């Protein structure tokens, strides 16, 4: 076993052991704080080995893997499990473990008021999540990736439903699971098609044109579900029912990015399917714009960020659709940092004012300087202000998309860049500047070190990650060189324009009415059209089919069986009078029998 493989195994198994220990050692878990200690310790170990692995990849580009047969049939190995060490898995591992560690430390303070048993459950689920995500990230084949994919889906379900007493949280958890599970059928069918064509679950097979298109389209269905692309984005805003640190880790930085990661990982397959890539480019750009418009009209700070996540994932999908693996992956990385930062800062603010509504905040910048600066830095990075990480990665995306499909996606993404800056500006000006809107906001104070510490840590990559583009590209075996052309100039000017406009609209005191354009979007958003289509389908198709079949089963299929029994009993009842018990009846039967035999004896002998 080589050293990099060892690092990968440590990164994978430490959280698994932590999760197992916390699940099995009930008293430990129920005590609360030991669970947090175990989970955070395991994440730190995982983070350490991830960094060691990444360092190793800087000067060693040869992928390494260690696999063991998992399912076999006769002498054929059907599926393997193990770890694969290469630039992609190493980079993603660092992102995942770093954000996970920050979020877990943040949670120590954020979840402080939970009862000990719930606190313990929370950290157990976090350890389980990290194990699942790492399983996905360092998978040596798509089957193991699928296993991790489903496992993160389940931890997501359990964490969204963490406050399971709240009916809305319970509904949101189940909805998230159903929507993503529906999409996951695409990945499963894709695996079946791939296996039928190649006999394994690797991503480097040469496929025929048709098979490549089929497999990648099926995979892309799963991506649409997991990475919350239109029209399967509906679960992500609802998923904000979960605790805010969970939203930061799962529903912004890592789990939702798994879809994008899948495409990055299986890039050799997607490269063989230009048709799929066109679909991705179109849908990604459409989602980016659509979700940005919806983000514009949210007043809940977490929902704004959730739609913003959809929108940014749209950027990544569009970049991958345009064939830029690096663009998609780099934006995934920077987005993971700044969006996790934004969510945690939002969490800190929510913790202070006990409300998600930005209208319940106001003036927090003075009361909570660290939180406010974290949120502002994150917003600037998201808006693509030059110098911050988001600027570089967004530029790479735009560069890739430029000129494709008559520049329609390019224009959409440019417009999205403007809208992004505008809606983030709105949140910043309403929540952090101006006057406090109520007593709670007026008496808000900065969160403790457990919460402010991770914010400060995450601010670092949010600012500087952009300058490591070349290193990042080198580890992936690609090249990256930034040059300030017209694209970046236009995009960043649009971003700045958005911020300025937001200042003029929202930055100068409270407003009673929305601008006309925003009000229009608001009216459209309030129709919940996409959600209503699904609800209609579920109630009028799925449930109707189910009740129809259940009726058929109970009253027709089983009814026929009952009818048989009924028939037998009725036949017996009809036949019973023959045994009347009167001697004359039996004598009559004997006589008839004798006559019958005699007739048969006389006439039957003709034959």
């Amino acid at each position: 076993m080589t050293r990099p493989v060892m690092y990968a195994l440590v990164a994978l198994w430490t959280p698994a052991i932590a999760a197992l220990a916390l699940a099995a050692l009930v008293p430990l878990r129920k005590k609360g704080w030991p669970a947090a200690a175990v989970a955070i310790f395991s994440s730190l170990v995982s983070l350490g080995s991830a960094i060691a692995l990444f360092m190793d990849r800087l000067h060693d580009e040869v992928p390494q893997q260690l696999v063991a047969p998992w399912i076999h049939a006769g002498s054929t190995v059907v599926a393997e499990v193990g770890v694969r060490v290469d630039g992609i898995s190493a980079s993603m591992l660092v992102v995942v473990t770093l954000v996970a560690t920050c979020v877990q430390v943040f949670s120590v303070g954020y979840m402080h008021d939970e009862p000990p048993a719930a606190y313990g459950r929370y950290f157990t689920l976090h350890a389980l999540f990290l194990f699942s995500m790492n399983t996905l990230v360092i998978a040596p084949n798509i089957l193991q990736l699928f296993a991790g994919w489903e496992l993160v889906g389940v931890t997501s379900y359990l964490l969204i439903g963490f406050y399971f007493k709240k009916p809305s949280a319970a509904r949101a958890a189940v909805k998230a699971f159903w929507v993503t599970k529906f999409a996951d059928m695409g990945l499963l069918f894709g695996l079946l098609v791939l296996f039928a064509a190649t006999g394994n679950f690797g991503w480097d097979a040469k496929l025929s044109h048709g098979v490549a298109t089929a497999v990648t389209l099926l995979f892309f269905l799963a991506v649409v579900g997991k990475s919350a692309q239109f029209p399967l984005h509906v679960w992500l805003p609802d998923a904000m029912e979960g605790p805010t640190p969970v939203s930061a880790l799962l529903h912004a930085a890592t789990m939702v990015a798994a879809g994008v990661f899948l495409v990055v990982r299986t890039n050799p397959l997607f490269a063989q399917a230009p048709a799929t890539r066109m679909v991705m480019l179109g849908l990604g750009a459409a989602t980016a714009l659509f979700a940005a418009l919806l983000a514009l009209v949210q007043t809940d700070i977490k929902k704004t960020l959730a739609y913003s996540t959809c929108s940014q994932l749209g950027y990544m999908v569009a970049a991958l659709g345009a064939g830029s693996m690096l663009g998609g992956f780099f934006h995934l990385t920077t987005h993971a940092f700044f969006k996790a930062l934004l969510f945690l800062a939002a969490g800190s603010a929510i913790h202070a004012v006990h409300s998600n509504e930005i209208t319940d905040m106001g003036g927090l910048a003075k009361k909570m300087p660290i939180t406010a600066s974290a949120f502002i830095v994150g917003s600037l990075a998201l808006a693509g202000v030059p110098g911050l990480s988001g600027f570089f990665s967004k530029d790479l995306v735009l560069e890739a998309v430029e000129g494709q499909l008559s520049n329609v996606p390019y224009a959409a993404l440019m417009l999205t860049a403007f809208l992004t800056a505008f809606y983030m500006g709105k949140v910043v000006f309403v929540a952090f500047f101006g006057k406090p809107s109520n007593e709670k906001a007026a008496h808000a104070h900065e969160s403790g070190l457990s919460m402010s510490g991770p914010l400060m840590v995450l601010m670092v990559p949010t600012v500087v990650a952009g300058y490591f583009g070349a290193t990042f590209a080198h580890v992936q075996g690609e090249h990256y060189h930034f040059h300030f052309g017209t694209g970046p100039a236009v995009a960043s000017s649009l971003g700045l324009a958005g911020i300025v406009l937001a200042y003029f609209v929202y930055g100068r005191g409270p407003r009673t009415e929305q601008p006309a354009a925003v009000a229009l979007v608001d009216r459209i958003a309030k129709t919940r059209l996409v959600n209503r289509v699904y609800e209609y389908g579920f109630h009028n198709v799925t449930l109707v089919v189910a009740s129809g079949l259940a009726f058929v089963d109970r009253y027709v299929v089983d009814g026929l069986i009952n009818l048989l029994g009924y028939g037998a009993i009725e036949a017996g009842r009809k036949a019973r009078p023959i045994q009347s018990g009167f001697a004359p009846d039996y004598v009559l039967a004997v006589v008839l029998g004798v006559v019958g035999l005699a007739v048969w004896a006389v006439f039957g002998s003709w034959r």
Partner: protein
Amino acid sequence: MNSHLLSIIVAAPAIAALIVMFISERDGANSRLAIRLVSLVGAAISFAGSLVAIRTYDKALGGLQRVEDYPLIPSFGVHVKLALDGWGGPLLVLTGVILFAGVLASWTVKTRDREFFALLLVLTAGVFGVFVSQDLLVFFLFYEIAVLPMYVLIGIWGSSHKVPARGPFKFVWNIFDIGGKQYAAMKLTLMLLVGSAAIMAAIFVLFLKAGGTTFDMGVLANTKYDRQTQIIVFPLVWLGFGTLAGVFPFHTWSPDGHASAPTAVSMLHAGVLMKLGAFGVMRVGMVILPEGARYWVPVVGAVAAINVLYGAFCAMNQTDLKYIIAYSSVSHMGVVMLGAATLTTTGWNGAVFQMVAHGIMTGLFFALVGLVYERAHTRAILKMGGFANVMPGVAAFFTLGCLSSLGLPGTAGFVSEFMVFLAAWKSQHYFWAIPGVLGAFITAIYVLRATRSIFWGPGPSHDFHDLSDAKKTEWGAIVILGSCLVILGFWPRLILDYIDPGSVEYLGKVLAPVSALARLP
């Protein structure tokens, strides 16, 4: 002693049953405890024996091992021939673990507990016997021993409920108390007996056509039956055993039967007995009648696909917790039959793995449902809600069961379902694989709806008084079964390594080229 291991496994529950019957009931609490301890020891001996049997099975060698042969009716060539094949080990362990957990789960049976435990043990002795019998007639005898006690167990210890009179056959309510426990017991027994009659007929045809000298399944499997016979006899075996495996449309005994049965009986019946059906179809039908099997598999597979999807949809519409689980069994047994119908090694591995996976999962489910029912006194999920607040452990294990049920990677359910779907797709039976995968999705809908409805949300309401988490022996059953699900999900080779040689060997017989008739219509 070691050479009699299989006899010990089969006999231990039967002997324990005998001892239980002689325990005086006069001592009150002491005799109650004695009954339970004797039963538990009997179960433990079989369980431990099955673990020894699987550990000592030489998987590289394969074939029949630990052969024991005692003549029973020598003039007809009937022998009690017991032997372990690749499939036997995992299925014995499954039976052992479910029996052990089932005894723990029935600790609180109140009425006539002596007879209850005795019957439960006798039934399980029959199950063990089926899995190791190599003589067709003895196989059948054990099968009947396993099936018949169910009538009494459901009829006496079961529970009743009302089913409204509706539909085109409303008039049958005049004479049947549909939903009642006697009705459920009667329907279950009669349907399975009709199946047994078909099997019996098939067995005699096989015996006579092979020369009428032996019932040895190995010999029968090497006998070349003519094509016409095979095509006529195979459906008898398929539907005969298939009735117990819940094959559509002969599955309707299952929802009523499982819903009415007491906890341990549901566990054993859905967990182990339904597998006897599928095992019989594969081991007797397909292996002994390869040409018949190859002729009929398109039908077998199509019906199995219907099972998966139809069972899942029916489960979705239920509001009675036990019916949900019972219909999900119908759906999941479809996966077993689907795997069997692919006639590929992967598919057969998946089918046998699914027998184990589903057995454990459904055993866990019924144990938990029993716990909930005992405390809540209702099975109507719409009346429940918020139970996770007061029984977090039960909620956690129920969720685990649900996840295995919907085929989550990392649980045993995924391994088998994936193998089966893969085999179906690889052999280009797309119309088997697609309903299969859809069925898994529908499963996700109904199990999570049920979980939300029972355990999540505010509550529990004031109608429920003495709700509490599992206690002492109850934990035993659910922790054992729950851990098995996860362990097998992560490392399926613990049993797959044994199943595989069995599948390879038996499938070799099914696929062996047969003279001029190799190409089938």
